[in-house]
């Protein structure tokens, strides 16, 4: 055999093995066996679930806010959560984002990341963004500065001291400004925006984080009909690329965006399915929709 033939052979073997080693085969590396390489901080969705809650319990001073709750969300799904006040919707988001520790249960992001072992900033960096019920933006900073702070980048003290926006990041920022219709208010103080605009800004800040999963607590509260329609449009474009979990009371809005609805009541799942099916459910009518 000639040396160049031997070289050629070695190259082909290497080319075949490289993707296997990285888990970049057709089935996400699963064919390579059970000893798949789990990359720290990377979400593993090969099991078809991006968020997985099982048998979660929380009680505050004896009151069971979350009661044996089990729920899962697929990658790219847009899930709406409805339920009466005190059903545990916000508490559930608190658990997912690390604000509240459950008394028992498991919460996984993908198949490998145990969210109960992380704190709020770590969970945010892993790729879970959250919008609060009451719009929470940095009121004394401009719209631009709000978005810049949310930008996905190193978030340590030293890198913040020497941070400069590069051109790719500027483009991303401009794009988000358009998406949230605040391109004309770049230098306005966030505190001077209208309620609806603050909601949009907060959504924009989530987009800047480029999260894999977005948790949105009443995103259209206080918005005009036009703003609500635009928000629905935005969420539908996000669907597929991101997973969304939306808590809302606005049934019209839910009808526009949802494919699957989960009804929470007393800290547990009461019903799940399409909006029509859920609305026809006797128990749901009883506790939430009213006759």
């Amino acid at each position, binding site marked *: 055999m000639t040396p160049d033939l031997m070289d050629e052979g070695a190259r082909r073997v290497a080319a075949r093995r490289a993707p296997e080693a990285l888990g970049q085969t057709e089935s996400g590396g699963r064919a390579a066996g059970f000893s798949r390489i789990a990359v720290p901080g990377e979400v593993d969705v090969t099991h078809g679930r991006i968020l997985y809650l099982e048998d979660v319990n929380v009680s505050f001073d004896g009151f069971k806010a979350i009661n044996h709750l089990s729920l899962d969300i697929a990658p790219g799904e847009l899930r709406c959560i409805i339920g009466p006040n005190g059903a545990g919707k916000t508490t559930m988001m608190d658990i997912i984002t690390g604000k509240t520790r459950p008394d028992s249960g498991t919460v996984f992001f993908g198949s490998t990341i145990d969210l109960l072992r992380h*704190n709020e900033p770590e969970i945010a960096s892993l790729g879970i963004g959250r919008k609060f019920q009451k719009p929470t933006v940095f009121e004394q900073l401009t719209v631009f*500065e709000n978005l810049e702070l949310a930008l996905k980048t190193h978030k340590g003290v030293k890198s913040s*001291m020497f941070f400069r926006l590069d051109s790719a990041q500027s483009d991303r920022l401009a794009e988000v400004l358009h998406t949230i219709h605040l391109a004309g208010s770049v230098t306005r103080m966030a505190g001077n925006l209208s309620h609806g605009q603050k909601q949009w800004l907060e959504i924009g800040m989530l987009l800047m984080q480029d999260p894999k999963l977005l948790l949105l607590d009443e995103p259209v509260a206080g918005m005009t009909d036009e703003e609500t329609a635009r928000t629905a449009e935005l969420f539908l474009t996000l669907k597929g690329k991101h997973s969304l979990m939306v808590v809302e009371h606005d049934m019209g809005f839910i009808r526009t965006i949802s494919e699957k609805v989960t009804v929470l009541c007393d800290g547990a799942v009461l019903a799940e399915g399409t909006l029509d099916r859920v609305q026809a459910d006797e128990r749901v009518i009883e506790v939430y929709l009213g006759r």
Partner: protein
Amino acid sequence: MTTPAIQLPAPAPLLTRSGWSAFIVALIVVCAVAPVLNLWVPAGSALHLSDYAVALLGKIMCYAICALAMDLIWGYTGILSLGHGLFFALGGYVMGMYLMRQIGRDGNYQSDLPDFMVFLDWKELPWHWALSDSFVATLVLIVAVPGLIAFVFGYFAFRSRIKGVYFSIITQAMTYAAMLLFFRNETGFGGNNGFTDFKRILGMPIATPTMRMTLFVLTGVTLLGFFLLARWLTLAKFGRVLQAVRDAESRVMFSGYAPLPYKLTIWTLSAMMCGVAGALYVPQVGIINPGEMSAANSIEIAVWAAVGGRATLVGPIAGAFIVNGAKSWLTVTAPEFWLYFLGALFIAVTLFLPDGVVGLVKKLKSRKSEGAAP
């Protein structure tokens, strides 16, 4: 669809053109004008800067450094410290220990040990005086001691998420506890008399006009330097994260920032700045005692910042000058009214000038330009 270009705001310069001019003027005044007026202009002349004025201004510039440090932690980060007097005093004590050792055998008892130790019948220096003979070690300790104490205290306080008024009360208790500790003779800090009667610094006599002027210039340059540092920090994204922590800490966390390192950094830095101010203060006033750690002193620092205008950097410096200028004038003309005045000032500022003097000036300026526009 292509998105039309948006003009994103460019990063703000460290200082504007007029800002730099003002800065240079201040630098010239401190480094050239003041020395000339004090040392070379004869005492009878109308332009002469009296020694009293030099001492007073030097002192106020030390206070202004504290006010600046307070602005970083309170104005920008929203953490009201009522214990910054402790860090100021600690820097002062480190400097005081060095100055005590510089007295050498010229004290009342002609001993190698400082007078108060002879008085207590101590035979050798306590361990914590070990480095006080070295000027270099003193310079390091001036920032290291307040910095370390602030770091340890801050780590536990911020990790436990102690906020708002609770944090203020704890810092107040901290400086009070330290004052009680320093009052005791056996801790080796000269008890309630503290340190005084300094003779030399770096082997040179301390009470000469030239030395006084040197310390004055040094203080002024330090103040201006710290101002630039603070300006750089607050203009960087770091400063915006601090403001974000002040306005909506939960949003900061859910944006992926861990607030603890940010708070700890600015808190420690702020304490170090106060330490430097204290170290510059002691050789100029010639005394340091536990009274500097009293609760009122720390509260006064907060008053200067509030009067000048929080989160403006220039404001607190101006506030330190305004309040202390008024203080030195009032305590001479009507000493019994000073505390009433201070209280009234604080109430008036809180009620009518939430943005301080700087806010007032800005408001007047914008009203003027509105009036000028057709």
